[in-house]
């Protein structure tokens, strides 16, 4: 019974609930698990395990191109994927070539290099084990060009060094020189463009991580054109779990995606609860309306 309107029943009150009440519930559903550090265990699904297995199978010194195709607005989702992939690549002694198709990706490369490679793997040498190629404009046009000639577009690295003076760039001719392309992002240009303009024409393995919003659009490319995909924070959490399973020493490192799955789960339960309640009130309301129509009464 609604005290403001005694004639309004429970279901009418629920049906007319202020949306801010729902926001409040969602807010608490996120804040409380964050404060309590509630997290869930994750198991890698085949689509995530495929990315892990591909990196795991690469021999030492293999060349991996990592494209930072995202911006600060999607950092909470994409950064945990990047962190886990960089740790895995460093552990496997792969050569990491970092570039960006997004203007905002340039700074994110520098941050990732500082936070993960330089801090956790200080023995890695810039120019020998990893390089920052920075941002280049051109979207899929850029991929089209570097498919045949990498150095036509990249004459220097992001620090301004001549590209041929960077030791790990000496034997790079084009995209076909890489053993794996990883595109991390979720918008345009992103994984789809890497598949269409890099992977497919060059027959180069492409994998990546995408925001959850764009992940469903990429599933049609799996597994033939896209060998694996980390979809949203769940994909990132699954990859972190696989990494911890393979390399238990990483358990003590930060694993933000696994940490985020607790609040994520609680928030989803609250949303599902509201969807169920909303549907029940909708059907009850419709049934009552039909009943009133049959009796020839006025719809209240």
């Amino acid at each position, binding site marked *: 019974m609604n005290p403001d309107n005694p004639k309004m029943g429970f279901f009418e009150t629920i049906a007319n609930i202020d949306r801010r009440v729902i926001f409040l519930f969602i807010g608490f559903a996120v804040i409380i698990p*964050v404060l309590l550090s509630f997290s869930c265990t994750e198991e890698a699904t085949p689509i995530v395990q495929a990315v892990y297995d591909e990196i795991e199978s690469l021999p030492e010194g293999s060349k991996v191109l990592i494209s930072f195709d995202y911006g600060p607005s999607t950092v*909470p*989702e994409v950064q945990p994927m990047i962190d886990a992939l960089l740790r895995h690549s460093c552990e496997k002694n792969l050569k990491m070539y970092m570039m960006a198709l997004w203007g905002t990706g340039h700074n994110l490369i520098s941050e990732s290099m500082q936070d993960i490679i330089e801090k956790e793997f200080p023995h890695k040498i810039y120019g020998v084990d990893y390089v920052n190629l920075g941002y280049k*404009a051109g979207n899929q046009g850029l991929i089209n060009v570097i498919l045949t000639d990498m150095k036509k577009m990249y004459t220097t690295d992001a620090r301004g060094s001549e590209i041929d003076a960077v030791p790990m760039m000496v034997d790079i001719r084009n995209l076909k020189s890489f053993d794996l392309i990883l595109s991390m992002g979720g918008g345009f240009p992103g994984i789809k463009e890497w598949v269409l303009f890099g992977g497919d024409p060059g027959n180069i393995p492409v994998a990546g991580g995408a925001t959850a919003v764009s992940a469903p659009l990429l599933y049609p490319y799996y597994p033939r054109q896209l060998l694996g995909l980390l979809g949203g924070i769940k994909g990132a959490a699954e990859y972190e779990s696989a990494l911890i399973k393979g390399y238990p020493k990483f358990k003590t490192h930060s694993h933000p995606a696994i940490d985020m799955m607790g609040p994520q789960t609680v928030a989803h339960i609250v949303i599902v609860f509201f969807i169920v309640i909303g549907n029940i009130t909708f059907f009850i309301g419709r049934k009552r309306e039909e009943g009133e129509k049959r009796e020839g009464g006025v719809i209240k």
Partner: protein
Amino acid sequence: MDSVFSHTIAAILTIGIISFLYKDNPLYKFCESLFIGVSAGYWFVQQYYANLLPKLFDNLGITKLVGAENAPEGALQALFLEGRLDDNLLYLIAGVLGVMMLLRLSPKIGWIARWPLAFTVGSSAGLYFITYFQSNAMSQLEHTILPLNSFNNLVLIVGTVTGIIYFYFSKEHKGVFGGAAKVGIYFLMITFGASFGYTVMSRMSLLIGRIDFLFGTWLGLVK
């Protein structure tokens, strides 16, 4: 101390944006305007240094012409000082097309902007048609022709065929055809549901990111 100050500013801006959930207010308006302004400024500078300066001004030699230090010689210097046509002179066409695009801002001569737009659309369509056709049509088609030897393959084939049938409007959706179209609707609804679920997860991740920042990074309440 610097990080405390910057985190506090970031926290105030975050709270300002979230405050819209209660109702529109001046703090939200300020944060929104600031975000748009900063984004526009960032992108302008980024595009200037990534595109205009190296590709247009440097290649044409305009940077050298205005007397910038260490600027490379460009196509204009080659033309007027050495009397030869440099390949980079082609960037002049791109520059002119760019200027033509900006004429859209003038109502009287805005029609001129249609020409560079037509050029961009035409050249993009020509350049990318084969790639899109090969990867998005042929490869997808090839990968859908599968043996019916597993449940996954069966779902994929039935989903694809019935989904296409639903969008075929030249024949009335009745009988077996109508039944197949109805199955197609269910596949579409499940797809939309999955997309919606992923969208919720994506938005929640962003919210969790901000909450973690407010309570963890800023207030230090998260262990």
